[in-house]
């Protein structure tokens, strides 16, 4: 694999460029007026689309293929919040609550990073397994539960714990992903064909629009970089690399293809910024959102999108290629 070529290819992909354009818009204070409703509409569309495609392809997967990657995913969902928490407490000297809040984000997964990794793999001709969207849903929940437990063991009585759980489980990303998987699985490839032009052909282009807006949002987070301090900035780059390597490794052990383990690596490396913030805001209101939002959206997401994803593919190639 030509690592440098792949990296350039990624940096010049329309979705990465659109993200950069969005950042530029915020920096120039360009009043593009991207409607929030369009942003929400696009996330519903993207989540449902990957769910549907994943569901259709899930039919080709046997339980024998599925169980090991699923187990690896759940394991990663249990380990990574703990490793993130440990690093934040020991090395970063964060208090218990903020450490748990950030750990919840880094243990969970960003659906958009998953999509970007998927697109990158396909552009390289290294596709991932069709059942991966199911794994995204599996990876999303446990870390948030673990992270909240880490605080709860010492701080009893947070009344809204169950609310936070309900929030994650029924939140848009888990619900639409799993719902899409269910619909796609039941409908099957033939009946899916009629809706494919909308959900498959339009997908990459819709992603460009979405990343344009996400770039604007991420750039707004950059303004807080100074307030989060150098430790969190380093954390936001190094921990994804650590988690990503772990994901690639376990994925490869679990029998995933090169594309599959690279995408799993990207998933594990990513930090949630939809499900986790909502749940954490409810369960740990004392935590400072500046920390977890700036780290996940301002540092880790751009890092993964540009450098991380090619890196995880390169690793997967080394290990499994």
């Amino acid at each position: 694999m030509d690592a440098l070529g792949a990296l350039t290819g990624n940096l010049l992909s329309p979705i990465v460029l659109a993200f950069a354009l969005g950042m530029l818009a915020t920096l120039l204070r360009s009043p593009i007026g991207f409607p929030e409703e369009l942003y929400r509409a696009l996330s519903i569309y993207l989540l449902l689309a990957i769910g549907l495609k994943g569901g259709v392809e899930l039919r080709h997967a046997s339980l024998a293929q599925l169980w090991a990657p699923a187990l690896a995913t759940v394991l990663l969902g249990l380990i990574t919040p703990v490793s993130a928490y440990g690093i934040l407490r020991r090395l970063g000297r964060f208090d218990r609550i903020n450490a748990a809040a950030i750990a919840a984000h880094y243990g969970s997964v960003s659906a958009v990073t998953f999509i970007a990794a998927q697109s990158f793999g396909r552009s390289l001709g290294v596709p991932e397994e069709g059942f991966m969207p199911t794994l995204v849903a599996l990876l999303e929940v446990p870390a948030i539960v673990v992270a909240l437990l880490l605080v709860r063991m010492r701080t009893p009585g947070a009344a809204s714990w169950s609310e936070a759980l309900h929030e994650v489980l029924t939140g848009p990303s888990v619900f639409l992903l799993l719902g899409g998987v269910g619909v796609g699985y039941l409908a099957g490839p033939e009946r899916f064909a009629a809706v494919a032009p909308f959900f498959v052909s339009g997908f990459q282009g819709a992603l460009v629009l979405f990343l344009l807006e996400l770039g604007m949002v991420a750039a707004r987070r950059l303004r807080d970089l100074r307030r989060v301090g150098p430790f969190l900035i380093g954390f936001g780059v190094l921990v994804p690399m650590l988690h990503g390597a772990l994901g690639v490794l376990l994925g490869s052990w679990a029998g995933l293809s090169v594309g599959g383990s690279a995408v799993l690596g990207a998933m594990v490396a990513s930090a949630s910024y939809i499900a986790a913030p909502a749940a954490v805001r409810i369960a740990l209101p004392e935590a400072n959102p500046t920390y977890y939002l700036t780290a996940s959206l301002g540092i880790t997401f751009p890092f993964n999108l540009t450098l991380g994803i090619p890196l995880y593919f390169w690793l997967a190639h080394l290990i499994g290629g």
Partner: protein
Amino acid sequence: MVSAVELKLLTIVAERVLEERLIRDLRSLGARGYTKTEVTGEGSRGVRASEWEGKNVKIEAIVSPEVADRMFERLAEAYFPHFAVIAYVIPVHVVRGDKYI
């Protein structure tokens, strides 16, 4: 002239994540209805979880003075310490106001 009762218009502006909880609290403390508007805003506190979603909610409820007081207390104890919330009360004349008490 149509009879108009004097009541309180209680307005709460809060980050969106609180919407359901605030409405539940309002109902349980005696409000008979509410009107909700999607708004944006800036205040003294920094970021909030919902910030990147871009919106706050404004909840307005016509209530009796007692309900307004009770909700003020609830806000002060359960929301003000950790959340981005602001609340105020205005006396209003309401048509057929008796149905809101």
